[in-house]
């Protein structure tokens, strides 16, 4: 049986996969580091162009069940490039370009092998781009693994560093366990419904015999748990701070933005397309998870003294906000998915911006020798706003955006959208918890932002200025944040067409 493949639809992951292989080979032939970096950035750019081109066309789908085998069921395509897919692919790819920009300096400074780094990064993004387009459980799991496996290696690429290795092992164990849990869940769902394609699972679940009800319920819960690991939701969050701290910073940025965006996309796809009939089961579960995630994330973030751990816990807390709309269950699910998408997209800009400044300016605080206090303590940021006004203002702006206060109108709108969907879904209690959490969040964001303008104290630091790529990354994220703050409707409109 021969099946036609719509190559245009799969162009973005295809470009990335080809580029990954090409880069690996090129590295073996000794192509210089700089060229590899630009090639990897170029590949992301090319994939982005493909996504943009697809955005003007109609919905495309491929790898469908052939007509003779459908048996009267729906078309059941495994790979669909609709608006939802393209929005997430766009977010993932733009974030990946920024990560590459941040990596260029880091690769040299941390003596990371460039060829492997870019190869792994491209592979991981291939997985992410495929994941958001996947519409059947097998492809979802495969894509998720394609996203996860390279990341362990990326985390461990600073081979001489024990902390990095420990982080990689931790991430590996957590990830393998979560994959196993998820696969078990998938098998239970398959056992109960006899289908792998989401558009077949949904009707099957709706008319499920009551004796299979617990099987499907447990299966759905296990799938949910598998995704919860990926997005670092409480109680599956504990890997995040250690891994963020151990990994090279650009990889931490990748984990907190690209990986998380893909995880949320997968979660939204599975819940909204596959399991809407069981909204009464997973809805309250997601609600409790969201409440715990934001509360614990914020409370732990309060106690952090290093920038990277603060960002790690704050990113856990932000996961809670993103989960909140989905707590509505199948009641106004479309609105909830749109809200989560909008929050993920806006969060990507602000969080990448904060990471970019930390990447660029952490290196300025490199201790002179052994025995000096740990790098990137929050106190090292004292006076950054006076020494380097642009970077200080940018970081302060990103932090205010993350806190969701004007002038960071973008963050405010992200919060408004999420609150609105949560209230619309009838989970007002969660919205109230979220309101309390924004206050806790403000405490630590503000504490950091105020330090930027406080009088500097402590040890001297090298006055090195970060390279052009990092500054370009900060500028790009800053420009994005300013534009979206002036016109947040750009994103809001884009995601509303999604559902």
């Amino acid at each position: 049986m021969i099946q036609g493949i719509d190559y245009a639809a799969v162009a973005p992951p295809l470009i990335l996969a080809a580029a990954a292989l090409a880069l690996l080979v090129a590295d073996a032939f000794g192509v210089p580091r700089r060229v590899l970096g630009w090639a990897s950035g170029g590949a992301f750019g090319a994939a982005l162009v493909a996504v943009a081109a697809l955005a003007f066309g109609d919905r495309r789908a491929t790898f469908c069940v052939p007509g003779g085998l459908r048996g009267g069921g729906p078309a059941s395509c495994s790979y669909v490039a609709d608006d939802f897919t393209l929005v997430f692919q766009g977010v993932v790819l733009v974030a990946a370009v920024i990560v590459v920009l941040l990596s260029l300096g880091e690769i040299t400074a941390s003596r990371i092998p460039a060829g492997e780094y870019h190869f792994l990064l491209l592979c991981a993004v291939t997985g992410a781009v495929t994941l958001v387009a996947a519409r059947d459980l097998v492809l979802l799991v495969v894509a998720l693994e394609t996203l996860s496996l390279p990341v362990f290696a990326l985390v461990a690429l600073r081979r001489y560093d024990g902390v990095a290795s420990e982080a990689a092992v931790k991430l590996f164990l957590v990830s393998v366990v979560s994959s196993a849990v998820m696969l078990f869940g998938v098998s239970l769902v398959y056992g109960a419904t006899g289908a792998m394609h989401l558009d077949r699972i949904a009707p099957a679940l709706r008319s499920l015999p009551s004796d299979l009800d617990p099987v499907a319920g447990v299966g759905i819960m296990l799938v949910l748990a598998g995704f919860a690991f990926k997005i670092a939701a409480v109680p599956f969050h504990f890997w995040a701070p250690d891994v963020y701290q151990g990994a090279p910073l650009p990889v931490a940025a990748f984990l907190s933005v690209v990986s998380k965006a893909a995880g949320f996309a997968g979660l939204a796809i599975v819940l909204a397309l596959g399991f809407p009939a069981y909204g009464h089961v997973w809805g309250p579960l997601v609600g409790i998870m969201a409440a715990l995630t934001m509360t614990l994330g914020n409370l732990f973030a309060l106690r952090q003294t290093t920038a990277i751990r603060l960002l790690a816990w704050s990113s856990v807390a932000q996961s809670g906000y993103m989960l909140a709309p989905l707590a509505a269950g199948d009641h106004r699910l479309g609105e909830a998915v749109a809200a989560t998408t909008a929050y993920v997209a806006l969060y990507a800009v602000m969080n990448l911006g904060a990471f970019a400044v930390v990447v660029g300016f952490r290196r300025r605080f490199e201790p002179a020798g052994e025995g000096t206090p740990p790098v990137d303590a929050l106190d090292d940021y004292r006076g950054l706003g006076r020494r380097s006004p642009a970077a200080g203002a940018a970081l302060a702006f990103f932090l205010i955006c993350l806190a969701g206060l004007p002038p960071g109108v973008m963050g405010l709108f992200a919060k408004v959208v999420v609150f609105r969907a949560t209230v619309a879904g009838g989970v007002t209690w969660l919205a109230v918890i979220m309101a309390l959490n924004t206050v806790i969040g403000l405490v630590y964001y503000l504490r950091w932002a105020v330090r930027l303008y406080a009088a500097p104290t402590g040890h001297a630091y090298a006055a090195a200025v970060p390279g052009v790529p990092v500054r370009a990354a900060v500028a790009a994220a800053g420009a994005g944040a300013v534009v979206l703050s002036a016109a947040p409707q750009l994103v809001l409109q884009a995601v509303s067409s999604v559902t």
Partner: protein
Amino acid sequence: MTAIPLLGAVLLLLPAGRFLPGDAAVARYGAGVSGATLLVAVSAATAFDYGKASETQLGVNASWAPSIGLRFHLGADGISLPLIVLTALLTFLCFLYTMKHPPAGGQIRLLTGLLLVLEVGMLGTFTALDLVLFFVAFEIVLVPMYAIIAIWGGSDRSFAARKFILYTLLGSGLLLVGMLLVGVKAGTLDMTELAARHGAGLSRGVQITAFLLMGLGFAVKTPMWPLHTWLPDAHTEAPTVGSVLLAGALLKMGTYGIIRVALPAAPQGAAYWAPWLGLFAVIGIIYGALACLAQTDLKRMIAFSSVGHMGFVLLGIATLTPVGINAALFGNIAHGLITGLLFFVAGSVKDRYGTGDLREIGGGMLASSPRLAGTLTFAAVASLGLPGLAGFWGEMLALLGAYKPHAALPRTTFVVFMAVAALGAVLTAAYFLRLLAKITHGTPQPDAPAGVARISAYEYAAWTPLIAATLLVGLWPKTLLAVTTGPVRALFGGG
């Protein structure tokens, strides 16, 4: 109208070297921009058709983000118009005052920018007719006010600033949930639309929850006892202009919000919570007065007096009658004028004596600096509600409203509230008279700063309009009541 200060603030982002070098030029620029805003506000007030005060006029209504039903809807009616003019006036006076008396801490450029952004937020709140837009404007004021307190404040400023922003953010988070609850259940975010429906289409349970959430949000801002604790700290530490705007305009956003958003959108919720609101309002009145009697710091005392005055405003709202709401709106304006004036004078006193401590200032200000003492006396007696001045009518009408509350409310409770509030009014008189007795009368301390500086022209310029307005509104209360009565009646669905 909001565009002018916004544009002005954005222009200030230009490099200092090329655009308006020097602090004096920036201060003049700020005064110019806010003056232009005031002119627009005044001309809006003249262009306003008072015959149709209950309708929204001079509005803009454009689609903003249609996907979530968000509209850019601005406009003014009889309820918001006086507050708009008050805000524009106070901001302008603050700039005038800053030209000659910049707060310690320099960075006038930054201060000017922040004050302009603050004005954008305040005017935006008073003109917004879309719930989300209202919320955005409500939030805009937080960061500038935080920065104003944290940069130019007194010795304990960072604590006070943090307390301010955390408290108010807590309030606005709950407010957002409440507003969205109304918006989602009613299917519209448009405030005029919601007001016209009088809560139709919202179940009683939803209204009660929504009013509680929104009420808490606004109560933090107002501030209502027991959510007021941020206010004395913020006022004491803030620089003069910060205190003036905080008391004069920012607090009004809370009571305005209750009247504009919470009452019309959830009338049944309002009826359910009104006795509680009244209770807390009365406790606030008594508490504020007693706290004032115990204060030794001039600014802290004025801050606590604000708690008491806002208690009267809340009591007026709690009666849910046109008389009460009118009283609340009147009290808002009167408090803005009088307390603004009091903080200006307190700032001048602090400048001259180097302290706000009543014991250290000592007595005899009438002898050493008669004009300053005279203005202080005027502001104090206006604040304690002397008939003929602005403060009187707000309190008087609020008590009158409490005597005859809305038919759905327990009358005996409110009559008790009225009696207690009247006692509070007496206490208010007591502490203001004690204040005057302490510092204006008596003989100057021997070690008082010799030759207290004369009052500058800029101080006069900042004070005179407030004094004049206090007299005007006090002697002809009809000027204000005529504007507000129409829309207030419309609020209750009557003609």
